[in-house]
């Protein structure tokens, strides 16, 4: 499996470390329902068979976090983008 890093180009998956599902976001810890939303955030996953949005860290390359869209049935990479948009590109 080769992952096209937006900065370095296509690199072997060996260079990357995997974190997991990129669709979950850290909830507001001060919200009244924080106990429930944190349970969801920490433990529950959609775990789809098909396109999956996920975080990979290019540890042996540019050391940036990359959001990868990948099909979990075939390992085909559907697209990649840097987690942090380049400066001046903030929309």
């Amino acid at each position, binding site marked *: 499996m080769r992952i096209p890093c937006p900065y370095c180009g296509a690199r072997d998956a060996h260079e990357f470390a995997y974190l997991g599902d990129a669709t979950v976001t850290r909830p507001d810890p001060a919200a009244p329902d924080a106990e429930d939303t944190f349970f969801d955030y920490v433990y529950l*996953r959609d*775990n789809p068979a098909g396109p999956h949005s996920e975080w990979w860290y290019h540890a042996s390359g540019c050391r940036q976090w990359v959001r990868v869209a990948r099909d979990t049935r075939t390992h085909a990479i559907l697209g990649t983008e840097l987690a942090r948009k380049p400066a001046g590109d903030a929309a």
Partner: protein
Amino acid sequence: MRYSFLSILKNGLTGQSGWKPAWRDAAPKPSYDVIIVGGGGHGLATAYYLAKVHGIRNVAVIEKGTIGSGNAGRNTTIIRSNYLLPGNEPFYEWSMKLWEGLEQELNYNAMVSQRGVLNLYHSDAQRDAYARRGNAMRLAGVDSELLDREGVRAMYPFLDFDNARFPIQGGLLQRRGGTARHDAVVWGYARGADRLGVDIVQNCEVTGFLREGDAIVGVETTRGPIRAGKVGLAVAGSTSRVARQAGLRLPIESHVLQAFVSEGLKPLIDGVVTFGAGHFYISQSDKGGLVFGGDIDGYNSYAQRGNLPVIEDVCEGGMALMPRIGRLRLLRHWGGIMDMSMDGSPIIDATPVPGLYLNAGWCYGGFKATPASGWCFAHLLAKDEPHETAAAMRLDRFRTGHLIDEKGVGAQPNLH
């Protein structure tokens, strides 16, 4: 028919013409008391113990492919009960006890071989951790022995004891651990369940659930709707996919684990050995092939095949442990889809949906659990209360904080 020395003799003298199929390939009936989704070892064992122990015989096991074609046919066949935590150890020891009587119980040769499982340690800290685990096992009434370097050398003199980076200092040995023939376990439970009246329905994929109000009262399948009093899921690898059809979102990710078999050799390793400084476990099948594996690939996958970096990592572990396997050729390798739970331990529990029960989250330790998983899931389905050895394997433990985290790495499934 009952298998015995006499039946072998009789069929040997009559041209092997008297053997009958070991189980019926049943067509689904319109309704059952209990439907088990998933015809792997766990599902078939559940059906067997439902019929045998609890007298519930109007049961169907429905399987999307053929029985035993998922993880039951894709593992490295190791059985052991060398766990640390009180939520796990009594359960796995109950499984070990069921393994010890399994062939007599099923009248089927599952090739259960208690050849010993040896976990090597390579540092003082690891020795202390293993001593702690061995003592925890003994407190739970399970056999364990802490071997020093010479004790290991007496068993396996060819290991790389003086490896410059990871010298072998000793090991934790469970002599009652070993291996079993994975396919025979599936076939034995299928035959046993079938003889008690359970229907085994193959090529029948669940496409949805029948509901009355909140409750689940059956399943929609590719072979039509089937009603049931209770539905139990034992579909590790596909749990999230199937449970989503019932509206459940679970603390599970699906990951791929690869395993390997070498070309056949003369007898070399008579037990199971694991390398403690990486992740590598190896045993030798009765046909002579070395059966080994290591870590999961580490990313979500339903592909049933993995990638080369993990193969390299597994082989590095093997070479560090026993360099003499360096010129061996691989005969084959494969991948299976693991239900990686958020704490590395399984779930056997009722779900919030009435009528639906869950057996899931086996990570990559499901094979050894097969008998007790079936026993405890059958107990739950029959009595609506957990079996005492599986009482900690609750679905709500993630919400309440009662995790069973053997490895202590937190909610990161690819690290368990």
